[in-house]
């Protein structure tokens, strides 16, 4: 009986000890964590179509037709609408878009531009239904000396996913930055700066059938990134 009491006591002490050790292990301990963060600079982008009086297409020399802005082209808004153009000829769209960037990044910013797709044909849908934007639409910084044959850089169709929503078309880039081939403007200062762009349209004869007119549409997406 005495021995049984002693064993019971020992078991109780053992249970208390184990429980105490467990409680000690579960007790909160203090530590430290170093958190590093970077405050992203403010970058604000504004793209204004048809930004100056006198906007619209010129060129088509030899086609026998004089180009004029389409009905969707409106001063400071709307669409860069070349109107009716003749296949096989080239055009310059004056004052197509102005790009304004406001940033507090002392290192400045970079602006990229890409087509959300290739040109999509409609009314009627041609075969093939699209035409490569890189072979038809070119950009050049606005200048009085520009012509349909001036040195200009092609827009490319994006290889990233794009979304059409209520706010317009957007492109989601992996890593948040468009490819270097889409760069159209690099500026190394902070502040608010604006640059104007003309567009060139270079059309092959084959872009539309010999008996039918075809409409083509695309969205050019501009992205501003702080340096």
């Amino acid at each position, binding site marked *: 009986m005495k021995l049984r009491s002693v064993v019971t006591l020992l078991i109780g002490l053992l249970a208390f000890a184990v429980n105490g050790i467990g409680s000690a292990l579960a007790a909160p301990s203090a530590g430290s964590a170093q958190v590093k963060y970077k405050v992203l600079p403010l970058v604000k982008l504004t793209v204004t179509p048809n930004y100056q009086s006198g906007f619209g297409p010129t060129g088509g020399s030899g086609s026998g037709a004089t180009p004029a802005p389409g009905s969707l082209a409106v001063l400071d808004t709307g669409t860069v609408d070349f109107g009716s153009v003749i296949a096989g000829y080239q055009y310059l769209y004056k004052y197509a878009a102005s790009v304004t960037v406001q940033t507090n990044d002392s290192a400045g910013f970079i602006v990229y531009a890409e087509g959300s797709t290739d040109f999509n044909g409609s009314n009627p849908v041609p075969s093939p239904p699209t035409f490569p934007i890189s072979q038809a639409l070119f950009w050049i910084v606005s200048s009085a000396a520009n012509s349909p*044959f001036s040195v200009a850089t092609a827009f490319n169709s994006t290889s990233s996913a794009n979304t059409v929503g209520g706010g317009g078309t957007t492109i989601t880039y992996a890593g948040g930055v468009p490819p270097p081939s889409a760069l159209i403007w690099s500026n190394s200062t902070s502040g608010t700066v604006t640059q104007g762009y003309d567009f060139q349209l270079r059309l092959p004869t084959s872009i539309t059938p010999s008996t039918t*007119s075809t409409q083509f549409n695309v*969205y050019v997406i501009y992205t501003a990134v702080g340096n």
Partner: protein
Amino acid sequence: MKRAALLWLGFLALVCAFGGGESAYASELNKTLKVFTINIVVTPSPTPVGFIAPAHKQPSNIAKAEALTANPYGGPTRVALGPAAFDIPMLGPAAAPMVVAQSSPQGSLPVQFVAKPDPNATFLHFVPHLAVLNAGYGANSYTCVFEIYAFMTSTWKVVDWGYGTVSSGTGTFPIENLPSASDLSWSAEGVSTAFDTVYNGGSPGEVTFTGTANVSQQHCIDFKLTVPTSLAAGTYTAAIQYTLQYTF
């Protein structure tokens, strides 16, 4: 006699007016013209320097990730953020040094046009094959950059010159302007195997190829381009005007 002379003068004036002042002879008229334009991208030789993402995942990182998944508490002590940016290297073929939520503002610009058929395509048009000419410093060759199709119901010829060039002036790479020589040469396949520098002295230009009445021709145009080492890398444009002239 006086009346006959006036009629003759009037006839000559009519020919000049329709010829646009560009005909080499009074009996030749311009039917139509087109300008072939192509971009030339000059990159430093021998190869453009670029960063190409590896085609496969990095094995060492995969092994670390798999070991971590199998035993999250194994291995050396880990801290939330050590001296390095990441205690666990990022995975994937295009792992950026840092990933942030896209905060770059975007703006979309709609562009449209209505392409109408080319009314002159029956007589003169191009069939493009190369969209851009990639060039290194030194000599470059391009086969069948584009084709020229021409047709007329009377004897005809196609003439060309560098767009915007004049008999003497200053120009830019690659076509330049007389008296400087063009850096771009051409050859019409099936017509000649010789390469001629693109004429850069304006009208009346040089003969590209000729044809007889009611017989069309279509020829590939090959280019050779010499890029001087003094030229900065970048994008340039070559524009060549082709005019279909016919005899009446």
